[in-house]
């Protein structure tokens, strides 16, 4: 590999001489026990990385089987029942066991203490407990899978889930219920850490935007997840004891479930995208060598999204027989929540202007994020429009929309973040050319998979159908072809990252010449306590060469 792997220019931060007296965190204790009893936020981040990669594989296999089934218009590879179980498994594992913990629990855990100049999170034991709770919840979910699966869809709509479904609904709901506590504890830990453990001089407007977005995310985790717990508990009560809550034949209201479910699950959408936005802000700034444009606007946009995100849940109920007045209110609010997202996209674009741009792998993912998130967000405007939603609600248009946000957005940001901080996490460099190639494969595969689904949706293809009219086959074949490209795109990084973890070239402390404390003041990989001494922060975040004038907004 050439020196072009690194960004070489005059150092931007203080580069203290490093002669470690302590081993790095990967070598500070060996053996399974030292990992499973660790209180180190970095090791816990790695435990999460392994766990969610496992669940991503399960969810991915389910998606692959669905895409193979959908190559032909008839239900031929699997039965309807199996298909229903596959999309439920795909949804549940991807939402609760991959997307929600992805950036927060892996990168958030690894980075937040280092970014704010702390030795660890505020409650290291609680942090480890969060991981064990996550694994316990995962075990329940895996049990429900092995025991025969669940066919309710990840949305668990009543009265189907409480009365009519024969699957192992309670086990899967228990898994999600338990995992929710992991989310709450992690969110709590981050909020307290960010409030109380910032290094001297690290005031709020010197925080990296990743920390701001994680703060906003943590607020949602703490405030919304209990509602999900209540909803699932009520569902379990109705299913198990026959007490009518949601079932109309027992005096319940099925719409109540949908209100409660989306009161959690819409904010959860922002749990899944805000951390991605935080990562992208870091990447764009670093690889443009420029302070992020409109720092405070980007920071407050995160909080605005977190707050507005709580009052738009009713846009999932435009055609669910919610009142027309409610529909009108939720429609306008849904339009307004897209303003802060637009602000972010414009600010990232403005950051590129007059920067000095490098095209390393993390930057490719960040640019891919901006493009795909923009398309996903704009298709969200169509869905927020009441008249259009009457047509495309519950169709592949919705599927395409949220996969552009969740996969095109969050997953691209996650992979970008993993590649950016990989030298810090593993202390190793990966093969840059191979990484750039696989980023391109993922981008192409993603669009080929999901763009045809916009067209299918507008044509009227409903979601959760294993069969479809033959005239739509061409779009399904394109989508399935894209999915296979996407699968290859995910397999390559999995291989070279694992390889590089053990055999990669040792990484320097700051290969990207980035400005965060985790780069300027911590080794690659860092020691157990991150820093030999707590740094004193004298500069704002994104202390990059541009803009050149000290007159900064």
């Amino acid at each position, binding site marked *: 590999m050439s020196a072009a792997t690194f960004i070489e220019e005059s150092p931007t931060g203080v580069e203290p001489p490093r002669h470690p007296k302590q081993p790095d965190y990967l070598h500070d204790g060996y053996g399974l026990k030292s990992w499973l009893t660790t209180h180190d936020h970095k090791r816990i981040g790695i435990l999460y990385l392994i766990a969610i990669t496992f669940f991503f594989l399960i969810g991915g296999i389910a998606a692959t089987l669905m895409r193979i089934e959908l190559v032909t218009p008839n239900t031929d590879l699997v039965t309807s029942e199996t298909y229903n179980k596959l999309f439920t498994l795909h949804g549940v594992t991807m939402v609760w066991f991959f997307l929600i913990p992805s950036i927060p629990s892996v990168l958030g855990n690894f980075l937040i203490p280092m970014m704010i100049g702390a030795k660890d999170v505020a409650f290291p034991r609680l942090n480890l407990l969060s991981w064990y709770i996550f694994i316990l919840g995962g075990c329940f979910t895996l049990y429900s899978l092995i025991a025969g699966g669940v066919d309710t869809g990840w949305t668990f709509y009543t009265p*189907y889930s409480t009365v009519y479904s024969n699957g192992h609904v309670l086990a899967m709901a228990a898994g999600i219920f338990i995992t929710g506590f992991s989310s709450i504890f992690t969110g709590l830990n981050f909020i307290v850490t960010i409030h109380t453990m910032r290094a001297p001089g690290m005031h709020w407007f010197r925080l990296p935007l990743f920390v701001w977005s994680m703060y906003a995310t943590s607020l949602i985790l703490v405030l919304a997840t209990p509602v999900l717990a209540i909803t699932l508990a009520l569902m379990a009560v109705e299913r198990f004891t026959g007490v009518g809550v949601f079932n109309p*034949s027992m005096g319940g209201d099925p719409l109540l479930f949908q209100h409660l479910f989306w009161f959690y699950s819409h904010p959860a959408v922002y749990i899944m995208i805000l951390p991605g936005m935080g990562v992208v802000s870091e990447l764009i700034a670093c690889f443009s060598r420029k*302070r992020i444009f409109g720092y*405070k606007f980007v920071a407050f946009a995160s909080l605005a999204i977190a707050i507005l995100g709580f009052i738009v849940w009713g846009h999932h109920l435009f055609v669910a027989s919610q009142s027309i007045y409610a529909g009108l209110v939720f429609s306008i609010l849904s339009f307004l929540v897209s*303003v802060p997202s637009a602000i972010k996209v414009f600010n990232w674009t403005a950051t590129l202007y007059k920067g000095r741009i490098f095209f390393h792998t993390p930057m490719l993912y960040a640019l891919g994020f901006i493009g795909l998130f923009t398309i996903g967000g704009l298709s969200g405007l169509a869905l927020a429009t*009441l008249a259009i939603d009457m047509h495309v609600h*519950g169709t592949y248009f919705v599927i395409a929309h949220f996969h552009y946000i969740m996969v095109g957005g969050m997953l691209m940001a996650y992979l970008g973040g993993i590649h950016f901080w990989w030298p810090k996490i593993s202390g190793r460099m990966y093969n840059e050319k191979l990484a750039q190639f696989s980023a391109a494969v993922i981008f192409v595969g993603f669009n080929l998979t999901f763009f045809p689904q916009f*067209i299918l949706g507008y044509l009227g293809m*409903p979601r959760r159908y294993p069969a479809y009219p033959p005239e739509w086959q061409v779009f399904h074949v394109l989508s399935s072809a894209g999915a296979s490209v996407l699968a290859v795109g995910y397999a390559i990084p999995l291989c070279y990252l694992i390889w590089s973890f053990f055999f990669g070239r040792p990484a320097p402390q700051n290969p990207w010449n980035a400005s965060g404390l985790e780069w300027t003041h911590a080794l690659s990989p860092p020691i157990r306590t991150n820093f030999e001494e707590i740094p004193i922060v004298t500069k704002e975040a994104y202390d990059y060469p541009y803009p050149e004038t000290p007159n900064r907004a």
Partner: protein
Amino acid sequence: MNLLAFDLPFVPKQASAQAGQVDAIFFAITVLSALLCVLLFVAITYCLIRYRSKSNADRTMSMAGHNLVEVVWSVIPMLIFIGLFIWGAIVYVEARNPPKNALTVYVVGLQWYWDIEHEEGPHEIGELHVPLNQPVRLVMTSQDVIHDFYVPAFRTKMDVVPGKYTEEWFTPIEPGRFRVFCNQYCGTKHGQMTAWIDVMKPQDYQAWLVGAGANTESIVQTGARLFRAHNCSSCHDDNSQVAAPDLHNIYGRQVPLSDGTFVTADDEYLRDSILTPAAQVVAGYKSIMPVYKGQISEPDIMAIIAYIKSLTPTPSASRPTSNQP
């Protein structure tokens, strides 16, 4: 009004009066979005090329923020969004309020088929015949789980919810057969819960009505039969000795309740009064009617309501559900 009365690629046939309006908004949003994407992607590409690391482009006077710029790119999208909201809301409100001259069809969703009753008589499963250019109102409920009656060619759908009546209406403007999908996941064979809508020229429709309805009783006749079978008639008939409200001329009218409030005697109220009579008792009567909850199937309740409705001479004000602005 059909704003886009031509076939577009990747767009299903515009077979209802509303389809063109929905497509027009969608078309507008798509064009706006595409413009924004092009602008943004051109700007990004320009920056990526001009300010690539190896270029010597002028980087002086670069900025890390500008309040006026932030305000401009927040306010302009917001104004566009509000405009889009208003346009979409106008079409939506119209699409949720059926006209008074609409033909009423009763639809019950069951795992995994559609049970459809015409007011004039015929009873259909999995197929709905409607006349061209005539507004049709579907009054829908479910016998089991939540379903959804979705007609892509009409650009409309509505959930079919157990325990309540929802409605959906459309004016077909193209003769032909159009697909119906259940669009709310309802269990194992959800993917097979499809149906067809047959839009027929009015004369063909009349011929079909006569042919299909010849050997069956109409929904009103069914309702009358059930009204007697369930002993409703022993109290609610004219010459009954029991003090029960007279059901003639009540459909669509304001009914005084014993708690001093009024309620409109629409489909939903009639349904509730059959299933849980004690909830809203008519002023001046005792709460002595038995509970029919769990005793009568959804299609039968619809038939009884159709019968009660027939006791009120048309034209009746048919504004049956409560969610009307």
